[in-house]
């Protein structure tokens, strides 16, 4: 099918980030001293497990970052391809059933009827108060709708078994590959793998992938036919919403660090290296920035952008683009307010490093300030940067939720955990309670932040020179 790629601003930045990561990996591979701490990371079972989870999230986020317009079916025979005005992502294509199955309003997880009673005019003309059938959930059952529970069990079992089979297959392949590599017999390798006697924590890797596969394949079976996590107020599938929110969370977490990094690196190292009035100026700047409540600053900035966008409606072609610009702007403003912490750390470290003899020796050799900063200071503070980035990530994901709750977060039309929580909070007071949007957002956010925190811990342990 013909598509027209329409990358958004944040897409470009995500692609750039991927390139940077690829370059970093390539560079690291050639430097033993840079590789050593990462070797330590991959030997840590917790780090391996959490990085598998993070990778799953990242994959979904990346798929959701490939935006395009689909070609419309040709109405006339002019031969010209006309593209839809709607921008969708690769993930939207994959999750088409989820996206299209829009019900009328709330429905509970796995339900086949709406959550609220409605007056329905029946065939005989009487009006009855009842829970109407959902349009899509269990739609394939037709008249046998009372069989829905059995059907769900059937799909669940199918998913569970196929997931387990896939896992066993994968385990066999991994074991075979390891056995060939280590030049031992298959059974011997299997024994080692099972007892966790391998050098790298392959067992942990296999189990984590197993859990992911198992859940994934159950969802794969159930989701197209039922609303696994129910639907929200306007009938959107909550599972779809939470999955779409992954990209928002990742973008906020990653791009913000990307925005703050140049500030923190440049200012922090300059302040520590030059000292004197440069240090004073930079210190005053970040002390002032730190003393303004950041929520206030963010609210003001977002409102300014809102006004600008309202005045220049023509500059934005679609809702998606508008939302994307607002997301990017939020990242920028979050980055501007959050560089101070890292900056202070880097300043302190640079103050220490600049007195080191090797920096003095570089001076004595006639190296320029720029060269000393890039060749001697930056590589020696990189561990701090890495540790801070990984720790900051999870706090930023949480910050997004808080900001949305306050009402200055991402665009209301954009799917994000913050928006989900914000819109769900009113429904918590309802009787019976509508708990599922909140629960779904909570579970996904919790898993992501936990994985990120565990990974950050492992990274810090590996890079912290005091631990070694």
């Amino acid at each position, binding site marked *: 099918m013909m598509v027209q790629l329409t990358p958004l601003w944040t897409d470009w930045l995500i692609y750039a980030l991927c390139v940077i990561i690829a370059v970093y990996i390539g560079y690291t591979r050639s430097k033993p001293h840079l590789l050593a701490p990462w070797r330590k990371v991959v030997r840590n079972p917790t780090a391996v497990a959490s990085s598998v989870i993070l990778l799953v999230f990242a994959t979904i986020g990346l798929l959701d970052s490939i935006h395009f317009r689909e070609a419309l079916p040709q109405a006339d025979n002019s031969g010209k391809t006309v593209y839809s005005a709607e921008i969708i992502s690769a993930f939207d294509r994959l999750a088409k059933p989820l996206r299209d199955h829009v019900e009328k309003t709330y429905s509970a997880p796995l339900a086949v009827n709406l959550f609220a009673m409605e007056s329905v005019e029946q065939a005989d003309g009487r009006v009855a108060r009842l829970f109407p059938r959902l349009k899509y959930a269990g739609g394939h059952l037709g008249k046998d709708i009372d069989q829905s529970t059995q059907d769900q069990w059937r799909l669940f079992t199918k998913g569970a078994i196929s997931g387990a089979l896939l896992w066993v297959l994968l385990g066999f392949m991994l074991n075979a590959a390891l056995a060939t590599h280590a030049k031992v017999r298959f059974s011997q390798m299997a024994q080692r793998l099972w007892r966790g006697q391998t050098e790298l924590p392959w067992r942990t890797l296999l189990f984590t992938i197993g859990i992911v596969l198992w859940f994934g394949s159950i969802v794969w079976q159930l989701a197209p036919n039922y609303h696994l996590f129910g639907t929200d107020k306007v009938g959107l599938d909550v599972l779809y919403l939470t999955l779409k929110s992954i990209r928002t969370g990742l973008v906020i977490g990653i791009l913000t660090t990307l925005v703050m990094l140049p500030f923190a690196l440049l200012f922090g190292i300059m302040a520590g290296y030059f000292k004197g009035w440069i240090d004073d100026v930079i210190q005053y700047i970040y002390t002032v920035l730190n003393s303004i409540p950041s929520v206030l600053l963010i609210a003001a900035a977002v409102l300014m952008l809102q006004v600008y966008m309202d005045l220049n409606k023509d500059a934005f072609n679609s809702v998606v683009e508008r939302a994307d610009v607002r997301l990017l702007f939020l990242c920028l403003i979050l980055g501007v307010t959050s560089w101070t912490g890292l900056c202070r750390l880097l300043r302190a470290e640079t103050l220490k490093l600049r007195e080191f*003899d090797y920096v*003095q020796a570089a001076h*004595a050799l006639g190296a320029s300030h720029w060269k000393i900063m890039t060749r001697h200071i930056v590589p*020696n503070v990189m561990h701090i940067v890495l540790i801070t980035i990984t720790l900051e990530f999870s706090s930023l994901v949480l910050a997004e939720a808080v900001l949305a709750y306050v009402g200055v977060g991402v665009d209301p039309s954009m799917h994000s955990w913050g928006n989900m929580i914000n819109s769900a909070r009113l429904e918590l007071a309802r009787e019976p309670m509508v708990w599922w949007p909140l629960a779904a957002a909570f579970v996904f956010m919790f898993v992501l932040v936990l994985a990120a925190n565990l990974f950050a811990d492992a990274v810090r342990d590996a890079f912290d020179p005091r631990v070694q």
Partner: protein
Amino acid sequence: MAHLLEVSNLSTLIQSGTRKVRALDDVSFHIERGETFALLGESGCGKSMTALSVLRLLPTGGHVVSGSVRLDGQDLVSLPEVTMRSVRGARIAMIFQEPMTSLNPVLTVSQQISEVLVTHQQLANAELKQRQLSLLESVGIPDPARVLASYPHQLSGGMKQRIMIAIALACEPDLLIADEPTTALDVTIQAQVLRLLRNLQTKTGMGMLFITHDLGVVAEVAQRVAVMYAGEIVELATRDEFFQRPRHPYSQKLFDSLPRSSKRGEALAVISGSVPRLDQEFVGCRFAARCDQVMAVCHEQAPRWINGDGGSGVRCHLYAAEMAGQGKLGAILVPLSTAQTTSQGGAEVGPLLKVSDLKVHFPIRKGFWQRVVGHVKAVDGVSLSIAPGRTLALVGESGCGKTTVGKGLLQLLPVSAGSVQFSGEELTQMPPQALRTRRGKFQIIFQDPFSSLDPRMTVMEILEEGMHVLGINNAQRQDHIDRLLTEVGLSPESQFRYPHEFSGGQRQRIAIARALAVKPQLIVCDEPTSALDVSVQAQILNLLHSLQAAHQLSYLFITHNISVVEYLAHEVAVMYLGRIVERGPVESVLGSPKHPYTQALLSAVPLVEKVSGREIIRLQGEMPSPANPPSGCHFHPRCPQALPQCPQQYPDQSVFDAGHTVHCHLYPCNH
């Protein structure tokens, strides 16, 4: 009667993961009451481990495998931990090397002393106060009441070490373990502390286990000496016996590698290689790989402990045959090569470097507006000159500003006043760009080889840094790197490795290669050997010596080690509190020092050879702060020969023969 401390066949193992380090292997010795027993050896030989094994304070994974430690006949190894705690501090006390880190910075001196008194003697209130005061008095601290209320950062290094000693002595221990107690101190302070320890010992009659790597200190304090090598005691002897005829080849080598004036112009004996790692199984003698009297049997069979007379002994195959034949242990001495002083042609050419009236003042800022309220006069009017191919040694205690002179003349620090002329060009007024192109001509080597190399760069990248300045292109660069590494005694393959893979001595070689890479004419050596062991120090000194001959290098050698000066320098300048007090040719200044400070400094240096009639001049107090130097002659508050005019006026320069000059009122101007 039992010995005070008897250690017999002590073996200690430290296990970390799968690595087993045999830190101590079959160590036996004993200490009597009132005796000082010195443990001598290079770093990594197990000296500190011996002390920690005795106290049962081994690091995690460490445990005593076999042997016994008896204090007054009581076995400490089998004591339960609770009982052991009452032994530590009360019956055995310990002083550590670093007084800066052994005291807790957030507690007052009084709190830290009372800790041990309360624990072991349950003293309280007035009694406690009284005891604290008398303790501080006994370690020679003036104004003890004030010191009790102060925090460690308000005290100098020497004071802190005295307080550590006071804490150690608080419970009148039977045995004091001193782990390199003076290594971090200056020679004049070291002399004070050593004398204090000796006096205390005669007063209390305690035994002392003195751990050190410094042969000079051993000669000063010890009655008996044990030499440790790779976890074993290789020689045990009384002090006189040991210094007259060391028996073990390792001990002999230690003596030979000491720099001194009699060895000027010749290469120092070196012990090749380094101390072996202790996580291996040894077959044969542990020193065999580095020994130049090695025999076939040394590699195959571990030498037995051979007892000599008077409790002495040695662990070496050389003496096994002799023992069987004569039943008496004599020393087999390698003939020392005859001293020959090669007089280097001091052809009178213009000086390469001429520094006149150099001042480096650091402003002290206070208050919100950072107003300058005073200056730390780190360097206050220093003049010196160095001719091509010559070595000028700058001697002084820490804090006298010698490193600041070095960095100031290299323009690594902003110079407040004065001129620095390098081959006729004035450096202080030079614009930064012009200065940068000339930087290759003068280089610096630092004290600490662990902080002077960027840990994130390979050796090749480190060496290349300076070559960018020279503009050597890539093809030549590779060649140049290979040549440099060979020249400093490293293999060219090592250029692909990172600094942490090298030992201290090797790192210092890399630092020297980095300085040489830009073909300098002058190298400022800022205590390049003080962080190294004696045998490694000899290697580095030899290297510097041969490089000077090969490249006509000039050195400004900053050091506090007088024996290195005697060995290497042509001229010497003695600094005190930012000023040079005495300057001249090395023979004349060290041979007949004129300034009272130089005399005191030289007399405080512990000597290996016993010089009869050597009178040690004890300096009182410590160097004042350079922020607030005394009026007139800076030295007058401590000077034993101070005259009435000393506090009034800084003395002019008095000239003696052969360029020997002194700033002192004792020698009225004779020009």
